[in-house]
């Protein structure tokens, strides 16, 4: 179970990333954020976001048209 949840379903690029960043910024090191999104571009984008910012993409799954990501805040 993640520490916080972000429902970004129905939002298009770059809103899921912007909202995730905003929420991660309020969280402590090691805490996890679960993100739900429907933008297919979010899959590649959250991978790139995590590689660039150093946050950890702990989980990634898909349930129908909904993508689920769990990001662990690092630094």
């Amino acid at each position, binding site marked *: 179970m993640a520490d916080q949840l972000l429902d970004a379903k*129905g*939002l*298009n*690029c*770059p*809103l899921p*990333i*912007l909202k*995730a*960043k*905003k929420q991660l910024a309020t969280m402590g090191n090691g805490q996890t954020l679960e993100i739900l999104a429907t*933008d297919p571009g979010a899959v590649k984008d959250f991978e*790139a*976001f995590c590689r*660039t*910012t*150093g946050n950890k993409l702990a989980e990634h799954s898909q349930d129908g048209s909904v993508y689920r990501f769990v990001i662990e805040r690092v*630094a």
Partner: protein
Amino acid sequence: MAEADLPNGKSMSIIITKGTLDWAYPPFILATTAAAMDVKVTMFFTFYGLGLLKKNLKLSVTTLGNSAMEMPMMGGHMKMPNMMSMLPGMTGLTSSMMKKLIKKKGVASIEELREAAELSDVRLIACQMTMDLFGYKPEQMVDGLEYAGAATYMETALKSDINLYI
């Protein structure tokens, strides 16, 4: 935020020269996303791009000179002939169609992206020469702008990892 605070230490500058609804998207999407990825971003607004910093935005998109423009219509996609832009009210129509589409598809408005840029400490520079040329007053513009010119841009660009001209 000071550059030293950003983990990846990268920076980007963008020159924005166009002020229509369609041309407003790429710079604001890239700037806000870069800022979310801990990149220090500077946006330099000049000529028609400067209008994107006005408090009240009335952005439009036209078919004129935009022959690639397609709009969803009657279940398909229709090319918008250049000629249509001559009809009275056509730019208003294409603009409102585009804005409806933007909302329906969950795409951010330019106002939202601009606010996100402001909140994520993107440095916004208004070209002073263009302010004078077009007779814009600082009270018409959003708060928190720097008013400067080409040398200020160059100083930033020379130190940036990415420099874009849009």
